[in-house]
């Protein structure tokens, strides 16, 4: 029997205070698409960093086609035949595609030659790409192509893909999968990391499930249901958010013909956005990152001012108000970026609770902070939303992404908003915590609030929202009821097709 392409045996990596990987063992065969499954913090990233030579394991060995393999640096891994597409792209905005590709290669040819090869390879794999474009101007899908082509030019035997589809539209996912199947047909192996179980079921032959750094299961994903895989991941029975049907109440948030310029150079300006949300209703806004999500949240929260009539809350014009005035009226927001936008990283949780809760929770009297009350509010958020932290005195920076996300969402929900706007509410949150955040959003709507959920996770929107609208290039499509909406229609809406006809030529 021929040895597997890569065999990982008893790999252990310990960080001070944390065991990231403990005795991990699995094999990746030639021409196999192998899935690595696990929640956030399960140790997937640490494991692939070890394979790619970015970190060195404390114990354990790796065998590459039966030979010992212990890369000290990514260059060594690349020389062996391992390539990696990163979750957070390792790209440089102010450089063009060819330069970005060259930076990922060990012996790049002259730029002009490289540009010709990029064009050739990108066409062969159905991923068209212009080598002279600035990466800062590319969409998320195109950026990922740059990463993939950078890998393919090195002719890898093993391609590691870390959460490749989290920022793609369904159509882009289809294109990516076609490419990956073509690669498998060429005899290359792929290590595919994701928490999107449907994707894994359609793509992978083998799966290794990690939990808290240990291998807790192996499966053939084609034989399992998405639910059984998810339960292997979290180690418990999953609770699906439930939603009783509700009658929409009175109009709480109305945006009419809102156009604002983006404050950032690479941002997208909003162009004539209109939307309306009633009490008890959840509006889901989908779209690929960078299509105006941050700007829309800013315009709703009051960070970006507009003319008074453009944003109305329960009929009152509020467009000219800043965030504090809107908060006082009951319009609360939770932005996407946790560190630095939703929370001040170096401040304690109590201080962070105070930052947005001061007005509605009356934590400040006559200009003086009532610290006892602020701490009480922070403790309430921690308890109700199961934030894992030693206590409210801990700095926000010290919390894991998922825990901090629970805190910032909980902080807004507990202020009993009449309108709540959230951007990427479950970004980087593990499955069970995500389910509880979604349930909290549903409960809030049930209690009579209007909720706007901006998210790139379509499954999430379909799960919680009553209506769906897509942001594309700063324009918002007309909302459509989620019920009866197909993935293809959503893909077209995300791509900017206004009509959303049902016949798709894909």
């Amino acid at each position, binding site marked *: 029997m021929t040895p597997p392409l890569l065999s990982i045996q008893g790999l252990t990596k310990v960080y001070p205070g944390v065991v990231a990987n403990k005795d991990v063992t699995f094999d990746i065969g030639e021409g196999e698409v192998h899935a690595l499954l696990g929640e956030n913090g399960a140790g997937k990233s640490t494991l692939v960093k070890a394979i790619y030579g*970015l*970190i060195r394991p404390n114990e354990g060995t790796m065998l590459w086609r039966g030979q010992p393999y212990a890369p000290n*640096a990514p*260059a060594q891994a690349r020389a062996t035949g391992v390539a990696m597409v990163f979750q957070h792209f*390792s*790209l440089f905005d*102010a450089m063009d595609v060819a330069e970005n590709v*060259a930076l990922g290669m060990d012996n790049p040819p002259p730029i002009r030659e490289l540009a010709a090869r990029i064009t050739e390879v990108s066409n062969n794999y159905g991923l068209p790409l212009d080598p002279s474009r600035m990466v800062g101007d590319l969409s998320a899908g195109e950026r990922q192509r740059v990463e993939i082509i950078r890998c393919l030019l090195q002719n890898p035997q093993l391609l590691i893909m870390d959460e490749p589809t989290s920022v793609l539209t369904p159509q882009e996912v289809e294109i990516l999968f076609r490419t990956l199947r073509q690669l498998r047909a060429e005899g290359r192996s792929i290590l595919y990391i994701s928490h999107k179980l449907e994707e894994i079921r359609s793509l992978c032959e083998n799966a290794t499930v990690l939990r808290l750094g240990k291998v807790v299961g192996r499966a053939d994903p084609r034989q399992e249901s998405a639910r059984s895989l998810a339960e292997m991941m979290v180690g418990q029975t999953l609770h699906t958010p439930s939603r009783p049907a509700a009658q929409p109440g009175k109009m709480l948030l109305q945006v009419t013909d809102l156009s604002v310029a983006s404050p950032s150079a690479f941002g997208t300006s909003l162009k004539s956005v209109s939307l309306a949300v009633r009490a008890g209703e959840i509006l889901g806004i989908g779209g690929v990152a960078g299509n105006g999500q941050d700007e829309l949240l800013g315009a709703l929260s009051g960070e970006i001012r507009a003319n008074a009539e453009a944003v109305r809350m329960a009929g009152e014009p509020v467009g000219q108000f800043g965030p504090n005035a809107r908060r006082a009226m009951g319009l609360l927001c939770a932005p996407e970026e946790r560190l630095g936008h939703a929370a001040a990283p170096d401040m304690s949780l109590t201080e962070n609770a105070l930052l947005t809760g001061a007005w509605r929770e009356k934590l400040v009297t006559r200009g003086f902070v009532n610290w006892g009350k602020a701490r009480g509010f922070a403790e309430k958020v921690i308890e109700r939303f199961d934030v894992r932290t030693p206590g409210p005195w801990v700095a926000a920076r010290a919390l894991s992404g998922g825990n901090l996300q629970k805190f910032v969402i909980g902080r807004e929900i507990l202020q009993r908003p009449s309108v709540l706007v959230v951007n990427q509410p479950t970004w980087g949150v593990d499955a069970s915590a995500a389910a509880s955040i979604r349930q909290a959003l549903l409960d809030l709507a049930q209690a009579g609030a209007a909720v706007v959920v901006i998210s790139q996770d379509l499954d999430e929107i379909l799960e919680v929202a009553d209506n769906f609208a897509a942001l594309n290039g700063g324009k918002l499509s007309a909302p459509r009821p989620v019920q009866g909406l197909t993935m293809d229609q959503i893909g077209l809406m995300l791509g900017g097709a206004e009509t959303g006809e049902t016949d798709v030529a894909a």
Partner: protein
Amino acid sequence: MDFGSINPVVLIASLMVAATPILLAAIGELVVEKAGVLNLGVEGMMIVGAVSGFAAAVTTGSPILGMLAAIVAGAAVSLIFALLTQVLMANQVASGLALTLFGLGFSALLGQSYVGIVPPRTEKLNFGFLSDLPVVGRILFGHDILVYVSLFLVAAVWYWLNYTRGGRVLRAVGENHDSAHALGYKVKRVRILAILFGGACAGLGGAYLSLVRVPQWTEGMTAGAGWIALALVVFASWKPWRVLAGAYLFGGIMVLQLNLQAAGYRIPVEYLAMSPYIITILVLVVMSSNRTRRTLAAPGSLGRSFHAAG
């Protein structure tokens, strides 16, 4: 106004000399900032270079040895900054300001016994008959070696940054240090080398002040040249040729206002003295006023400390 008493050929020739110190310091700082490091200690490194170069030249009698000493001294001072910001992860702005204050004080201490001494003369290069050509000879072939070195450095930095692998890696590190690290580049090593280069250039620029331009040693003689160099880099949108243009503009107005002062124009001296600073900054601000272009030009990781995760 009557400019008749001012000879344009002499003016151009002397503006090149006046601009060389800030040009050297600015081109060094440009490389540092392209690597994502903001070193506000240019002024301090310049003046340590000025005093070290002066002392070495007086002691050995050779201006070339003095300049080499200034390069070493500038790099050595910048090493303090590199240690603070890249190894100990100190804040770059505070460390840079501290470096300037340290340099000013330290150079005054070192230079105490050198006040009032005349350094050995730095000879102009001899281009034979070329130097005797009218106009061109004076402007192009009538300078000392450092003027040519500074021009060569601008061209070399421009070529290296844009057309070599090393330059591409340096820009990548400055643009997004997390990505560069993920691809396996040594972010800290690149940055420390860039800081050393910036220090060496600033030191050389300082020595040019004390050995050629003035030439003598006085306390605090850089008089803000390091700050102008810093401003030049920003307003030149981190482009080497624009740094050259800005430096020569500054030098030109500096020389012109000195000539105007000498010619006795009835403009208060204070206004003339501030004019190079104001005009240079105004022109560069206008040149770089296009907002999107400016944001594109600034290295993405400028001034941010790099902590390797994992």
